Protein backbone atom coordinates (compact mmCIF):
# COMPACT_ATOMS: atom_id res chain seq x y z
CA UNK A 1 0.00 0.00 0.00
CA UNK A 2 2.77 2.39 0.95
CA UNK A 3 4.74 1.66 -2.23
CA UNK A 4 1.56 2.32 -4.19
CA UNK A 5 1.14 5.72 -2.54
CA UNK A 6 4.80 6.55 -3.09
CA UNK A 7 4.50 5.57 -6.74
CA UNK A 8 1.52 7.86 -7.24
CA UNK A 9 3.33 10.65 -5.44
CA UNK A 10 6.24 10.21 -7.83
CA UNK A 11 3.94 10.36 -10.87
CA UNK A 12 2.27 13.51 -9.57
CA UNK A 13 5.65 15.17 -9.10
CA UNK A 14 6.80 14.27 -12.61
CA UNK A 15 3.61 15.71 -14.05
CA UNK A 16 4.13 18.85 -11.98
CA UNK A 17 7.57 19.32 -13.54
CA UNK A 18 6.14 18.82 -17.04
CA UNK A 19 3.41 21.36 -16.27
CA UNK A 20 5.82 23.92 -14.83
CA UNK A 21 8.14 23.57 -17.79
CA UNK A 22 5.28 23.95 -20.28
CA UNK A 23 4.07 27.06 -18.45
CA UNK A 24 7.48 28.72 -18.61
CA UNK A 25 7.78 27.73 -22.27
CA UNK A 26 4.36 29.20 -22.98
CA UNK A 27 5.36 32.54 -21.50
CA UNK A 28 8.72 32.67 -23.31
CA UNK A 29 7.34 31.59 -26.68
CA UNK A 30 4.53 34.15 -26.59
CA UNK A 31 6.92 36.95 -25.63
CA UNK A 32 9.39 36.04 -28.37
CA UNK A 33 6.50 35.90 -30.83
CA UNK A 34 5.31 39.39 -29.82
CA UNK A 35 8.81 40.82 -30.25
CA UNK A 36 9.39 39.03 -33.57
CA UNK A 37 6.04 40.21 -34.87
CA UNK A 38 6.94 43.79 -33.98
CA UNK A 39 10.11 43.27 -36.02
CA UNK A 40 7.96 42.03 -38.89
CA UNK A 41 8.93 38.37 -38.65
CA UNK A 42 6.40 36.46 -36.47
CA UNK A 43 7.08 32.85 -35.49
CA UNK A 44 5.10 30.60 -37.78
CA UNK A 45 2.59 28.49 -35.84
CA UNK A 46 3.43 29.84 -32.40
CA UNK A 47 -0.28 30.01 -31.59
CA UNK A 48 -0.63 26.27 -32.26
CA UNK A 49 2.29 25.45 -30.00
CA UNK A 50 1.04 27.72 -27.21
CA UNK A 51 -2.33 25.98 -27.40
CA UNK A 52 -0.76 22.54 -27.01
CA UNK A 53 1.46 23.80 -24.19
CA UNK A 54 -1.66 25.09 -22.42
CA UNK A 55 -3.23 21.65 -22.72
CA UNK A 56 -0.12 20.16 -21.11
CA UNK A 57 -0.12 22.77 -18.33
CA UNK A 58 -3.72 22.16 -17.38
CA UNK A 59 -3.78 18.38 -17.75
CA UNK A 60 -0.54 17.94 -15.83
CA UNK A 61 -1.78 20.23 -13.06
CA UNK A 62 -4.93 18.21 -12.31
CA UNK A 63 -3.45 15.49 -10.07
CA UNK A 64 -1.22 18.04 -8.30
CA UNK A 65 -4.16 20.36 -7.63
CA UNK A 66 -6.12 17.45 -6.17
CA UNK A 67 -3.18 16.49 -3.91
CA UNK A 68 -2.87 20.12 -2.76
CA UNK A 69 -6.62 20.38 -2.07
CA UNK A 70 -6.66 23.32 -4.48
CA UNK A 71 -10.33 23.11 -5.43
CA UNK A 72 -13.04 25.21 -3.86
CA UNK A 73 -15.92 23.54 -2.08
CA UNK A 74 -18.58 24.48 0.46
CA UNK A 75 -17.45 23.03 3.78
CA UNK A 76 -19.98 24.89 5.91
CA UNK A 77 -22.12 21.88 6.81
CA UNK A 78 -19.58 19.06 6.78
CA UNK A 79 -17.32 21.00 9.17
CA UNK A 80 -20.02 20.68 11.81
CA UNK A 81 -19.96 16.85 11.62
CA UNK A 82 -17.71 14.63 13.72
CA UNK A 83 -14.34 13.37 12.47
CA UNK A 84 -15.84 10.07 11.48
CA UNK A 85 -18.83 11.54 9.68
CA UNK A 86 -16.51 13.85 7.73
CA UNK A 87 -14.35 10.91 6.69
CA UNK A 88 -17.41 8.96 5.48
CA UNK A 89 -18.74 11.91 3.45
CA UNK A 90 -15.32 12.63 1.98
CA UNK A 91 -14.79 8.99 1.08
CA UNK A 92 -18.09 8.84 -0.79
CA UNK A 93 -17.55 12.10 -2.70
CA UNK A 94 -14.03 11.00 -3.64
CA UNK A 95 -15.31 7.68 -4.97
CA UNK A 96 -18.02 9.46 -6.98
CA UNK A 97 -15.44 11.85 -8.43
CA UNK A 98 -13.25 8.87 -9.23
CA UNK A 99 -16.00 7.23 -11.27
CA UNK A 100 -16.71 10.47 -13.17
CA UNK A 101 -13.07 11.10 -14.05
CA UNK A 102 -12.46 7.46 -14.94
CA UNK A 103 -15.23 7.84 -17.52
CA UNK A 104 -13.73 11.12 -18.75
CA UNK A 105 -10.34 9.44 -19.08
CA UNK A 106 -11.81 6.54 -21.06
CA UNK A 107 -13.87 8.83 -23.31
CA UNK A 108 -10.84 11.04 -23.89
CA UNK A 109 -8.87 8.01 -25.10
CA UNK A 110 -11.72 7.09 -27.46
CA UNK A 111 -11.80 10.69 -28.71
CA UNK A 112 -8.04 10.53 -29.28
CA UNK A 113 -8.45 7.36 -31.33
CA UNK A 114 -11.18 9.01 -33.37
CA UNK A 115 -9.01 12.05 -34.16
CA UNK A 116 -6.10 9.75 -34.98
CA UNK A 117 -8.22 7.87 -37.50
CA UNK A 118 -9.49 11.13 -38.98
CA UNK A 119 -5.96 12.53 -39.07
CA UNK A 120 -6.87 15.82 -37.31
CA UNK A 121 -4.01 18.30 -37.13
CA UNK A 122 -3.48 21.79 -35.71
CA UNK A 123 -4.38 24.81 -37.79
CA UNK A 124 -1.15 26.31 -39.10
CA UNK A 125 1.76 23.93 -38.59
CA UNK A 126 -0.29 20.72 -38.74
CA UNK A 127 0.86 18.95 -35.61
CA UNK A 128 -1.32 15.87 -35.05
CA UNK A 129 -3.74 16.38 -32.17
CA UNK A 130 -4.18 12.83 -30.95
CA UNK A 131 -0.98 12.46 -28.85
CA UNK A 132 -2.09 15.37 -26.69
CA UNK A 133 -5.52 13.85 -26.17
CA UNK A 134 -3.91 10.60 -25.07
CA UNK A 135 -1.81 12.61 -22.61
CA UNK A 136 -4.92 14.29 -21.24
CA UNK A 137 -6.52 10.85 -20.87
CA UNK A 138 -3.45 9.62 -18.95
CA UNK A 139 -3.57 12.68 -16.67
CA UNK A 140 -7.22 12.05 -15.89
CA UNK A 141 -6.23 8.44 -15.13
CA UNK A 142 -3.56 9.58 -12.68
CA UNK A 143 -6.08 11.96 -11.11
CA UNK A 144 -8.27 8.89 -10.52
CA UNK A 145 -5.38 7.12 -8.78
CA UNK A 146 -4.90 10.14 -6.52
CA UNK A 147 -8.61 10.12 -5.71
CA UNK A 148 -8.39 6.38 -4.97
CA UNK A 149 -5.54 6.87 -2.51
CA UNK A 150 -7.49 9.67 -0.80
CA UNK A 151 -10.64 7.56 -0.63
CA UNK A 152 -8.71 4.66 0.94
CA UNK A 153 -7.24 7.00 3.54
CA UNK A 154 -10.68 8.34 4.38
CA UNK A 155 -11.91 4.76 4.65
CA UNK A 156 -9.21 3.98 7.20
CA UNK A 157 -10.05 7.12 9.14
CA UNK A 158 -13.75 6.24 9.11
CA UNK A 159 -13.10 2.72 10.41
CA UNK A 160 -10.59 3.71 13.08
CA UNK A 161 -12.49 6.85 14.03
Amino acid sequence: METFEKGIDYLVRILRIIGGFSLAAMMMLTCVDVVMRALGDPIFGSMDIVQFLAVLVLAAAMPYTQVQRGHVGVSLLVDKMGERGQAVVDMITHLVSLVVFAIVSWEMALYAKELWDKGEVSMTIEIPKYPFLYLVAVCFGILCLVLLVDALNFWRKAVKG
Partner: protein
Amino acid sequence: MSGSTIGLIGIAILVTLFFTRMPVAYVMTLVGWLGFAYIRGWDVGLKLLSRDFYDVYSSYGLTVIPLFVLMGQFAFNAGIGRKLYDSAYCFLGHIRGGLAMATVAACTAFGAVCGSSPATAATIATVALPEMKRYGYGGRLSSGSVASGGSLGMLMPPSVVLIVYGILTEESIGKLFVAGIAPAVFITICFILAISVYAFLRPSEGPAGERTPWKDKIKSLSNMSETLVVFLLVMGGLFKGWFTPGEAGAVGAFGVFAAALFRRQLDWKGFVKSLYETLRTSCMVLLLVAGAVIFGHFLAVTRIPFTVANWVAALDAPPWAIVSVIVMVYLIGGCFIDALALIMLTIPIFFPIVTNLGYDAVWFGVIIVLVTQMGVITPPVGINVYVVSGIDRTIPLQDIFRGSFPFLLALILGTAFMIMFPELVLYLPNLMY
Protein backbone atom coordinates in the same frame (compact mmCIF):
# COMPACT_ATOMS: atom_id res chain seq x y z
CA MET B 1 -41.11 15.34 -17.62
CA SER B 2 -40.60 18.70 -19.27
CA GLY B 3 -37.12 20.10 -19.79
CA SER B 4 -37.63 22.80 -17.18
CA THR B 5 -38.63 20.25 -14.54
CA ILE B 6 -35.52 18.16 -15.21
CA GLY B 7 -33.47 21.33 -15.08
CA LEU B 8 -34.91 22.33 -11.71
CA ILE B 9 -34.28 18.84 -10.31
CA GLY B 10 -30.72 19.10 -11.62
CA ILE B 11 -30.21 22.46 -9.89
CA ALA B 12 -31.63 21.05 -6.63
CA ILE B 13 -29.24 18.06 -6.77
CA LEU B 14 -26.39 20.43 -7.58
CA VAL B 15 -27.04 22.61 -4.55
CA THR B 16 -27.44 19.56 -2.28
CA LEU B 17 -24.13 18.10 -3.46
CA PHE B 18 -22.39 21.45 -2.87
CA PHE B 19 -22.94 20.94 0.84
CA THR B 20 -20.98 17.68 0.87
CA ARG B 21 -17.76 19.67 0.46
CA MET B 22 -17.23 18.03 -2.93
CA PRO B 23 -15.31 20.49 -5.14
CA VAL B 24 -17.79 22.77 -6.94
CA ALA B 25 -16.12 22.01 -10.28
CA TYR B 26 -16.58 18.27 -9.82
CA VAL B 27 -20.23 18.66 -8.82
CA MET B 28 -21.01 20.79 -11.90
CA THR B 29 -19.32 18.20 -14.14
CA LEU B 30 -21.22 15.31 -12.57
CA VAL B 31 -24.69 16.88 -12.50
CA GLY B 32 -24.29 18.59 -15.87
CA TRP B 33 -23.21 15.37 -17.51
CA LEU B 34 -25.93 13.21 -15.95
CA GLY B 35 -28.64 15.74 -16.77
CA PHE B 36 -27.47 16.23 -20.32
CA ALA B 37 -27.23 12.48 -20.90
CA TYR B 38 -30.69 11.94 -19.40
CA ILE B 39 -32.27 14.34 -21.91
CA ARG B 40 -30.14 13.69 -24.98
CA GLY B 41 -29.18 10.03 -24.50
CA TRP B 42 -26.09 8.39 -23.04
CA ASP B 43 -24.05 8.17 -26.24
CA VAL B 44 -24.20 11.91 -26.77
CA GLY B 45 -23.66 12.51 -23.06
CA LEU B 46 -20.43 10.51 -22.98
CA LYS B 47 -19.11 12.33 -26.02
CA LEU B 48 -19.98 15.68 -24.41
CA LEU B 49 -17.59 14.98 -21.50
CA SER B 50 -14.46 14.43 -23.57
CA ARG B 51 -15.28 17.19 -26.09
CA ASP B 52 -16.03 19.85 -23.46
CA PHE B 53 -12.95 19.11 -21.39
CA TYR B 54 -10.64 19.12 -24.39
CA ASP B 55 -12.26 22.23 -25.87
CA VAL B 56 -11.74 24.14 -22.63
CA TYR B 57 -8.14 22.95 -22.16
CA SER B 58 -7.14 23.75 -25.72
CA SER B 59 -9.01 27.08 -26.00
CA TYR B 60 -6.55 29.77 -26.99
CA GLY B 61 -8.62 32.38 -25.16
CA LEU B 62 -8.14 30.58 -21.86
CA THR B 63 -4.33 30.64 -22.05
CA VAL B 64 -4.86 34.12 -20.63
CA ILE B 65 -5.57 32.73 -17.19
CA PRO B 66 -2.33 30.82 -16.42
CA LEU B 67 -0.27 33.71 -17.79
CA PHE B 68 -1.91 36.41 -15.69
CA VAL B 69 -1.86 34.17 -12.62
CA LEU B 70 1.86 33.64 -13.22
CA MET B 71 2.39 37.41 -13.36
CA GLY B 72 0.76 37.78 -9.93
CA GLN B 73 2.80 34.90 -8.54
CA PHE B 74 6.08 36.41 -9.70
CA ALA B 75 5.07 39.71 -8.12
CA PHE B 76 4.14 37.92 -4.89
CA ASN B 77 7.33 35.87 -4.62
CA ALA B 78 9.52 38.84 -5.56
CA GLY B 79 8.21 40.83 -2.59
CA ILE B 80 6.84 43.66 -4.71
CA GLY B 81 4.05 44.09 -2.14
CA ARG B 82 6.51 45.33 0.50
CA LYS B 83 7.87 48.06 -1.76
CA LEU B 84 4.42 49.24 -2.78
CA TYR B 85 3.42 49.44 0.86
CA ASP B 86 6.55 51.41 1.74
CA SER B 87 5.78 54.00 -0.93
CA ALA B 88 2.16 54.33 0.10
CA TYR B 89 3.26 54.74 3.71
CA CYS B 90 5.56 57.63 2.82
CA PHE B 91 2.60 59.58 1.48
CA LEU B 92 -0.22 58.61 3.83
CA GLY B 93 1.42 57.35 7.04
CA HIS B 94 1.33 60.60 9.01
CA ILE B 95 -2.46 61.05 8.74
CA ARG B 96 -4.77 59.60 11.37
CA GLY B 97 -5.67 56.12 10.09
CA GLY B 98 -2.99 56.68 7.46
CA LEU B 99 -1.41 53.24 7.70
CA ALA B 100 -4.75 51.67 6.89
CA MET B 101 -5.11 54.06 3.95
CA ALA B 102 -1.62 53.11 2.79
CA THR B 103 -2.68 49.47 3.04
CA VAL B 104 -5.66 50.03 0.76
CA ALA B 105 -3.59 52.04 -1.71
CA ALA B 106 -0.91 49.32 -1.76
CA CYS B 107 -3.61 46.71 -2.40
CA THR B 108 -4.86 48.62 -5.44
CA ALA B 109 -1.32 49.04 -6.73
CA PHE B 110 -0.58 45.35 -6.24
CA GLY B 111 -3.89 44.53 -7.93
CA ALA B 112 -2.42 46.11 -11.03
CA VAL B 113 -0.12 43.11 -11.43
CA CYS B 114 -2.24 40.49 -9.70
CA GLY B 115 -5.63 39.17 -10.77
CA SER B 116 -7.03 37.64 -7.63
CA SER B 117 -8.38 38.96 -4.35
CA PRO B 118 -7.07 36.38 -1.87
CA ALA B 119 -3.58 36.63 -3.38
CA THR B 120 -3.62 40.43 -3.02
CA ALA B 121 -4.91 40.25 0.56
CA ALA B 122 -2.27 37.66 1.47
CA THR B 123 0.54 39.68 -0.07
CA ILE B 124 -0.27 42.98 1.58
CA ALA B 125 -1.33 41.38 4.88
CA THR B 126 2.11 39.86 5.48
CA VAL B 127 3.64 43.31 5.09
CA ALA B 128 1.04 45.67 6.50
CA LEU B 129 -0.34 43.82 9.54
CA PRO B 130 2.93 43.76 11.54
CA GLU B 131 3.53 47.39 10.60
CA MET B 132 0.11 48.54 11.82
CA LYS B 133 0.54 46.55 15.01
CA ARG B 134 3.84 48.31 15.63
CA TYR B 135 2.09 51.69 15.47
CA GLY B 136 -0.65 50.57 17.85
CA TYR B 137 -3.48 50.07 15.38
CA GLY B 138 -6.53 48.15 16.58
CA GLY B 139 -7.04 44.65 15.22
CA ARG B 140 -10.35 45.54 13.58
CA LEU B 141 -9.20 48.46 11.49
CA SER B 142 -5.91 46.82 10.49
CA SER B 143 -7.35 43.44 9.53
CA GLY B 144 -10.47 44.96 7.98
CA SER B 145 -8.45 47.24 5.74
CA VAL B 146 -6.28 44.37 4.45
CA ALA B 147 -9.18 41.99 3.85
CA SER B 148 -11.28 44.64 2.11
CA GLY B 149 -8.41 46.35 0.30
CA GLY B 150 -7.35 42.94 -0.98
CA SER B 151 -10.72 42.54 -2.64
CA LEU B 152 -9.66 45.33 -5.02
CA GLY B 153 -7.24 42.82 -6.54
CA MET B 154 -10.01 41.42 -8.69
CA LEU B 155 -11.41 44.78 -9.81
CA MET B 156 -8.12 46.41 -10.69
CA PRO B 157 -7.03 44.81 -13.97
CA PRO B 158 -5.78 42.19 -14.65
CA SER B 159 -8.67 40.32 -13.11
CA VAL B 160 -9.30 36.58 -13.24
CA VAL B 161 -13.03 37.14 -12.69
CA LEU B 162 -13.24 39.55 -15.63
CA ILE B 163 -11.30 37.12 -17.85
CA VAL B 164 -13.73 34.32 -17.06
CA TYR B 165 -16.70 36.64 -17.52
CA GLY B 166 -15.31 37.74 -20.88
CA ILE B 167 -14.83 34.17 -22.05
CA LEU B 168 -18.28 33.00 -20.97
CA THR B 169 -20.08 35.97 -22.50
CA GLU B 170 -17.74 36.47 -25.50
CA GLU B 171 -17.04 40.05 -24.49
CA SER B 172 -13.65 41.65 -25.18
CA ILE B 173 -11.32 40.96 -22.25
CA GLY B 174 -9.30 44.05 -23.15
CA LYS B 175 -12.39 46.23 -22.87
CA LEU B 176 -13.39 44.64 -19.56
CA PHE B 177 -9.91 45.25 -18.16
CA VAL B 178 -9.92 48.90 -19.17
CA ALA B 179 -13.41 49.26 -17.72
CA GLY B 180 -12.13 48.05 -14.35
CA ILE B 181 -9.60 50.85 -13.85
CA ALA B 182 -11.85 53.82 -13.01
CA PRO B 183 -14.14 51.85 -10.64
CA ALA B 184 -11.06 50.44 -8.86
CA VAL B 185 -9.70 53.93 -8.28
CA PHE B 186 -13.16 55.15 -7.25
CA ILE B 187 -13.61 52.34 -4.71
CA THR B 188 -10.11 52.96 -3.37
CA ILE B 189 -11.13 56.55 -2.67
CA CYS B 190 -14.37 55.35 -1.03
CA PHE B 191 -12.33 53.02 1.20
CA ILE B 192 -9.95 55.81 2.17
CA LEU B 193 -12.90 58.03 3.07
CA ALA B 194 -14.39 55.19 5.13
CA ILE B 195 -11.10 54.86 7.02
CA SER B 196 -10.94 58.58 7.78
CA VAL B 197 -14.49 58.54 9.15
CA TYR B 198 -13.67 55.45 11.21
CA ALA B 199 -10.43 56.93 12.54
CA PHE B 200 -12.25 60.16 13.38
CA LEU B 201 -14.87 58.28 15.42
CA ARG B 202 -12.34 55.96 17.06
CA PRO B 203 -9.00 57.77 17.18
CA SER B 204 -7.38 55.05 19.30
CA GLU B 205 -7.86 52.45 16.56
CA GLY B 206 -5.70 54.26 14.04
CA PRO B 207 -3.08 56.66 15.43
CA ALA B 208 -0.94 58.64 13.00
CA GLY B 209 2.50 57.35 12.05
CA GLU B 210 5.71 59.29 11.50
CA ARG B 211 5.87 62.04 8.93
CA THR B 212 8.14 61.41 5.97
CA PRO B 213 10.15 64.36 4.57
CA TRP B 214 9.32 65.31 0.97
CA LYS B 215 12.76 64.28 -0.24
CA ASP B 216 12.11 60.71 0.89
CA LYS B 217 8.59 60.79 -0.48
CA ILE B 218 9.89 61.51 -3.96
CA LYS B 219 12.60 58.92 -3.54
CA SER B 220 10.09 56.27 -2.50
CA LEU B 221 8.30 56.62 -5.83
CA SER B 222 11.07 54.61 -7.46
CA ASN B 223 9.70 51.64 -5.49
CA MET B 224 6.67 51.70 -7.71
CA SER B 225 8.51 52.03 -10.99
CA GLU B 226 8.51 48.42 -12.18
CA THR B 227 4.89 47.86 -11.23
CA LEU B 228 3.90 51.03 -13.04
CA VAL B 229 5.93 50.21 -16.16
CA VAL B 230 4.53 46.67 -16.41
CA PHE B 231 0.99 47.88 -15.80
CA LEU B 232 1.27 50.62 -18.43
CA LEU B 233 2.79 48.18 -20.91
CA VAL B 234 0.10 45.54 -20.39
CA MET B 235 -2.90 47.87 -20.24
CA GLY B 236 -1.55 50.24 -22.87
CA GLY B 237 -0.94 47.33 -25.22
CA LEU B 238 -4.46 46.06 -24.70
CA PHE B 239 -5.92 49.55 -25.00
CA LYS B 240 -4.13 50.22 -28.26
CA GLY B 241 -4.79 46.72 -29.58
CA TRP B 242 -1.08 45.87 -29.90
CA PHE B 243 -1.58 42.44 -28.47
CA THR B 244 -4.21 39.90 -27.51
CA PRO B 245 -5.03 39.40 -23.82
CA GLY B 246 -2.97 36.18 -23.85
CA GLU B 247 0.04 38.02 -25.20
CA ALA B 248 -0.49 40.80 -22.66
CA GLY B 249 -0.39 38.17 -19.91
CA ALA B 250 2.82 36.66 -21.24
CA VAL B 251 4.49 40.05 -21.64
CA GLY B 252 3.34 41.11 -18.16
CA ALA B 253 4.55 37.90 -16.53
CA PHE B 254 7.88 38.19 -18.26
CA GLY B 255 8.11 41.88 -17.36
CA VAL B 256 7.64 41.23 -13.65
CA PHE B 257 10.02 38.26 -13.87
CA ALA B 258 12.70 40.32 -15.60
CA ALA B 259 12.35 43.22 -13.15
CA ALA B 260 12.56 40.85 -10.18
CA LEU B 261 15.60 39.14 -11.66
CA PHE B 262 17.27 42.48 -12.36
CA ARG B 263 16.76 43.59 -8.77
CA ARG B 264 17.78 40.17 -7.49
CA GLN B 265 14.49 39.62 -5.72
CA LEU B 266 13.62 36.25 -7.22
CA ASP B 267 15.82 33.19 -6.80
CA TRP B 268 15.41 29.75 -8.39
CA LYS B 269 13.27 28.59 -5.47
CA GLY B 270 10.91 31.54 -5.84
CA PHE B 271 10.72 30.97 -9.59
CA VAL B 272 9.76 27.30 -9.24
CA LYS B 273 7.31 28.13 -6.46
CA SER B 274 5.62 30.70 -8.72
CA LEU B 275 5.29 28.10 -11.49
CA TYR B 276 3.78 25.42 -9.24
CA GLU B 277 1.43 27.81 -7.48
CA THR B 278 0.24 28.98 -10.90
CA LEU B 279 -0.41 25.39 -11.98
CA ARG B 280 -2.59 24.90 -8.94
CA THR B 281 -4.60 28.11 -9.29
CA SER B 282 -5.04 27.82 -13.07
CA CYS B 283 -6.16 24.22 -12.78
CA MET B 284 -8.68 25.21 -10.11
CA VAL B 285 -10.09 27.98 -12.33
CA LEU B 286 -10.06 25.97 -15.56
CA LEU B 287 -11.77 22.94 -14.01
CA LEU B 288 -14.44 25.35 -12.79
CA VAL B 289 -14.78 26.68 -16.33
CA ALA B 290 -15.02 23.15 -17.74
CA GLY B 291 -17.61 22.21 -15.13
CA ALA B 292 -19.57 25.36 -15.88
CA VAL B 293 -19.43 24.67 -19.63
CA ILE B 294 -20.78 21.14 -19.12
CA PHE B 295 -23.45 22.34 -16.71
CA GLY B 296 -24.26 25.19 -19.10
CA HIS B 297 -24.83 22.67 -21.90
CA PHE B 298 -27.23 20.82 -19.65
CA LEU B 299 -29.10 24.03 -18.77
CA ALA B 300 -29.29 24.93 -22.44
CA VAL B 301 -31.04 21.67 -23.37
CA THR B 302 -33.52 22.16 -20.52
CA ARG B 303 -34.25 25.62 -22.00
CA ILE B 304 -34.28 27.10 -18.48
CA PRO B 305 -32.24 30.20 -19.38
CA PHE B 306 -34.75 31.09 -22.14
CA THR B 307 -37.75 30.35 -19.94
CA VAL B 308 -36.42 32.51 -17.14
CA ALA B 309 -35.44 35.31 -19.53
CA ASN B 310 -38.93 35.27 -21.07
CA TRP B 311 -40.54 35.22 -17.69
CA VAL B 312 -38.53 38.19 -16.48
CA ALA B 313 -39.20 40.06 -19.73
CA ALA B 314 -42.93 39.54 -19.17
CA LEU B 315 -42.67 41.02 -15.67
CA ASP B 316 -43.79 44.58 -15.69
CA ALA B 317 -40.93 45.78 -13.51
CA PRO B 318 -38.56 48.66 -14.24
CA PRO B 319 -35.10 47.50 -15.45
CA TRP B 320 -33.24 48.92 -12.45
CA ALA B 321 -35.44 46.86 -10.11
CA ILE B 322 -34.60 43.66 -12.00
CA VAL B 323 -30.90 44.47 -11.96
CA SER B 324 -31.15 45.17 -8.23
CA VAL B 325 -32.73 41.75 -7.66
CA ILE B 326 -29.92 40.10 -9.64
CA VAL B 327 -27.36 42.03 -7.60
CA MET B 328 -29.05 40.80 -4.42
CA VAL B 329 -28.83 37.20 -5.66
CA TYR B 330 -25.08 37.59 -6.14
CA LEU B 331 -24.71 39.32 -2.79
CA ILE B 332 -26.49 36.54 -0.90
CA GLY B 333 -25.06 33.73 -3.02
CA GLY B 334 -21.58 35.20 -2.63
CA CYS B 335 -21.85 34.76 1.13
CA PHE B 336 -21.97 30.98 0.67
CA ILE B 337 -20.26 29.99 -2.56
CA ASP B 338 -16.90 30.94 -4.02
CA ALA B 339 -17.29 34.04 -6.21
CA LEU B 340 -15.94 32.53 -9.40
CA ALA B 341 -18.06 29.39 -9.09
CA LEU B 342 -21.16 31.49 -8.48
CA ILE B 343 -20.53 33.68 -11.52
CA MET B 344 -19.97 30.72 -13.80
CA LEU B 345 -23.07 29.01 -12.53
CA THR B 346 -25.38 31.99 -13.00
CA ILE B 347 -24.07 33.80 -16.07
CA PRO B 348 -25.97 31.59 -18.55
CA ILE B 349 -29.20 32.61 -16.82
CA PHE B 350 -28.63 36.25 -15.90
CA PHE B 351 -26.56 37.49 -18.81
CA PRO B 352 -29.35 37.26 -21.44
CA ILE B 353 -31.79 38.96 -19.07
CA VAL B 354 -29.51 41.91 -18.40
CA THR B 355 -28.54 42.45 -22.03
CA ASN B 356 -32.20 42.13 -23.09
CA LEU B 357 -32.99 44.97 -20.71
CA GLY B 358 -30.59 47.08 -22.74
CA TYR B 359 -27.74 47.22 -20.25
CA ASP B 360 -24.14 47.21 -21.43
CA ALA B 361 -22.41 43.83 -21.11
CA VAL B 362 -19.09 45.41 -20.06
CA TRP B 363 -20.80 47.48 -17.39
CA PHE B 364 -22.58 44.39 -16.03
CA GLY B 365 -19.24 42.55 -15.81
CA VAL B 366 -17.81 45.31 -13.62
CA ILE B 367 -20.95 45.39 -11.44
CA ILE B 368 -20.70 41.62 -10.94
CA VAL B 369 -17.09 41.98 -9.83
CA LEU B 370 -18.09 44.71 -7.37
CA VAL B 371 -20.79 42.53 -5.88
CA THR B 372 -18.53 39.48 -5.60
CA GLN B 373 -16.02 41.75 -3.89
CA MET B 374 -18.62 42.14 -1.16
CA GLY B 375 -18.88 38.35 -1.00
CA VAL B 376 -15.21 37.89 -0.08
CA ILE B 377 -15.56 39.99 3.10
CA THR B 378 -19.00 38.90 4.32
CA PRO B 379 -19.66 35.97 6.65
CA PRO B 380 -19.88 33.02 6.69
CA VAL B 381 -17.65 32.31 3.66
CA GLY B 382 -15.52 35.42 3.21
CA ILE B 383 -12.37 34.03 1.65
CA ASN B 384 -10.30 37.19 2.21
CA VAL B 385 -11.17 37.23 5.89
CA TYR B 386 -9.96 33.65 6.21
CA VAL B 387 -6.76 34.49 4.36
CA VAL B 388 -6.05 37.40 6.71
CA SER B 389 -6.87 35.37 9.80
CA GLY B 390 -4.53 32.65 8.53
CA ILE B 391 -1.71 35.19 8.45
CA ASP B 392 -2.32 36.76 11.86
CA ARG B 393 -3.90 34.27 14.23
CA THR B 394 -4.07 36.74 17.11
CA ILE B 395 -7.00 38.64 15.57
CA PRO B 396 -10.29 36.79 16.14
CA LEU B 397 -12.28 35.96 13.01
CA GLN B 398 -15.32 37.96 14.08
CA ASP B 399 -13.14 41.04 14.61
CA ILE B 400 -11.98 40.87 11.00
CA PHE B 401 -15.58 40.58 9.82
CA ARG B 402 -16.55 43.54 12.02
CA GLY B 403 -13.55 45.50 10.83
CA SER B 404 -14.59 44.87 7.23
CA PHE B 405 -18.07 46.22 7.83
CA PRO B 406 -17.32 49.95 7.21
CA PHE B 407 -15.63 48.93 3.96
CA LEU B 408 -18.65 46.84 3.01
CA LEU B 409 -20.83 49.93 3.46
CA ALA B 410 -18.45 51.98 1.30
CA LEU B 411 -18.51 49.25 -1.33
CA ILE B 412 -22.31 49.11 -1.39
CA LEU B 413 -22.57 52.89 -1.73
CA GLY B 414 -19.91 52.92 -4.45
CA THR B 415 -21.67 50.16 -6.37
CA ALA B 416 -25.03 51.92 -6.12
CA PHE B 417 -23.34 55.00 -7.52
CA MET B 418 -22.00 53.03 -10.49
CA ILE B 419 -25.41 51.47 -11.13
CA MET B 420 -26.86 54.99 -11.29
CA PHE B 421 -24.02 56.44 -13.37
CA PRO B 422 -22.78 53.78 -15.81
CA GLU B 423 -20.66 56.43 -17.56
CA LEU B 424 -18.10 56.17 -14.78
CA VAL B 425 -17.50 52.56 -15.83
CA LEU B 426 -17.94 52.93 -19.58
CA TYR B 427 -16.08 56.15 -20.37
CA LEU B 428 -12.61 54.58 -20.75
CA PRO B 429 -13.55 51.38 -22.62
CA ASN B 430 -15.66 53.40 -25.07
CA LEU B 431 -12.51 55.29 -26.06
CA MET B 432 -10.92 52.04 -27.26
CA TYR B 433 -10.40 51.10 -30.92
